[in-house]
């Protein structure tokens, strides 16, 4: 560890004393201030994640944690010499605000929505909040952040979550493979045009409901798609959807977000495949010295557990850390959270990278 180059401790107050006056003014050094934002996505809010809820998970392990309310807490770590402020948010607009905040450590915990993007909302019910056409799109629904074209399983769209998508019309050229999500890219040569009648038998929803969700498709319309084993492990018919976020004019997509936080930890299923190439390459948000760190997950993950492990390990990094580069503590948290996860969550064998 290098010498911590501490900035000025700032402004203090002191009293004067006459001779013999025993009063005095105490001076105690301040710790470095760091801000952690926990953005809980749809169905990963506290009331839905049981033992992994924050702050309860942390307060059981960190005696110095001060819980202000169920969304705000502080933790002064006497080993790191860092005073952490932790804020829990649950809306898309708050998530975006903190992604755009210099110095913030932003942790997303939620769904990846098959690569479409982080998704927010209070309800677990089917509906538009599961997609990117939510009525209140500033605060709920998907923040489009994935590859421009993604193959989405029909029953996921029409049966399980019931949200409107923008299918790629069969009248249009097949999108370039390089613009497709890796899953669709693997099946690029199998892509074909499906008619509505090809799609309808594959789902439980009525034909009318399905065509409505396919952006009010007409009965003679066709769409690009493919059959493949989906993320669920089932053989499913997929329809290729436009999920573009570049130059859309939508204030709530990755194209409009100017990421400037210091660390972005994206804890949802397979975010390394879904979002790493987009955020780091397509979007061009790259690491810059001791800034713009990013961590992703391999495979499907139990997001709430991994998030709890990550936060605990960040807060309990066992070395002095004030005014130091963040890399060592982030790498420590990654390794320890992966170890914690491997020892406790067998169903989804994932890790942070």
């Amino acid at each position: 560890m290098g010498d911590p180059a501490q900035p000025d401790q700032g402004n203090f107050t002191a009293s004067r004393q006459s001779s013999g006056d025993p009063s005095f003014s105490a001076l105690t050094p301040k710790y470095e201030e760091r801000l952690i934002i926990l953005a809980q996505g749809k169905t990963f809010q506290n009331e839905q994640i049981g033992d992994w809820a924050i702050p309860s998970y942390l307060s059981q392990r960190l005696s110095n944690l001060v819980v202000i309310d169920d969304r705000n807490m502080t933790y002064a770590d006497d080993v790191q010499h860092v005073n952490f402020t932790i804020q829990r948010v649950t809306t898309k607009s708050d998530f975006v605000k903190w992604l755009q905040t210099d110095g913030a450590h932003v942790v997303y915990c939620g769904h990846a929505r098959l690569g479409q993007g982080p998704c927010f909302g209070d309800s677990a019910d089917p509906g538009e909040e599961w997609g990117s056409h939510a009525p209140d799109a500033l605060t709920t629904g998907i923040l489009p952040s994935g590859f421009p074209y993604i193959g989405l399983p029909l029953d996921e769209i029409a049966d399980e979550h019931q949200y409107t998508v923008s299918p790629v019309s069969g009248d249009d050229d097949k999108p370039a493979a390089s613009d497709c999500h890796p899953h669709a890219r693997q099946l690029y040569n199998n892509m074909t045009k499906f008619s509505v009648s090809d799609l309808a038998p594959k789902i439980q929803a009525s034909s009318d409901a399905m065509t409505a969700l396919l952006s009010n498709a007409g009965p003679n319309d066709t769409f690009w798609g493919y059959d493949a084993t989906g993320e669920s492990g089932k053989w499913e018919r997929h329809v290729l959807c436009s999920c573009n976020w570049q130059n859309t004019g939508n204030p709530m997509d990755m194209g409009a977000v100017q990421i400037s936080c210091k660390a972005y930890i994206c804890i949802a299923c397979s975010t390394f495949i879904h979002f790493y190439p987009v955020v780091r390459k397509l979007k061009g948000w790259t690491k810059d010295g001791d800034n713009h760190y990013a961590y992703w997950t391999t495979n499907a993950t139990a997001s709430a557990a991994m998030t709890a492990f990550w936060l605990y390990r960040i807060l309990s990094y066992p070395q002095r850390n004030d005014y130091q580069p963040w890399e060592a503590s982030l790498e420590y948290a990654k390794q320890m959270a992966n170890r914690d996860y491997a020892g406790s969550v067998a169903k989804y064998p994932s890790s942070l990278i």
Partner: protein
Amino acid sequence: MAQYVVKQGDCILSIASSFGFFWETIWNDPQNASLKQLRKDPNVLLTGDVVYIRDKQIKQESKPTDGRASFVRKGTPAQLRLQLLDRNHQPRKNLSYNLVVDGALRSGTSDGNGWIVEPMPPNAQKAELTVVDQGVPEKYSMGLGTVDPITESSGVEQRLKNLGHSTTSGVGPALKAFQKKYGLPESGNPDDATRAKLKSIHGC
């Protein structure tokens, strides 16, 4: 009799000095009894407090014509007494320091209880303290006479900050952390017990 309205940075010591009195003369003046009762500490006043300043009394000394008369003005010594504490509020011993008070430099080492005690003019306004701990300099800028009474919310906040508590999320969380440290009920409110403990640890 004049009335003086306290400004930020004033204390009885500095006010008395500027009017040419001993601080005890002002503080113990019956006209200031209610102020004394309210504030209790002559060095911790609040902006807007009113201090009564008695009229100067003429003192006459008889001396022979052409005789030599010597008059000695009694000083009004003032000190800056600081205690360096770590985050657990334990003394930080034997740390070298430079203290600049209104431009005058003094150097030394904190004693075995973390004390730094240096004389200063009673009207000094600012101090800059640099403490070196394990080779790392820490710089503290201090407004002298700026501590507000513990009865004021500003006084509570100032003491919390001086004791290393962050008020970034507000005074309530900082108070909770302080209360937790000292086994007080964690209300986040400055109750009497919390104010008393804050004053005790902070020193004024």
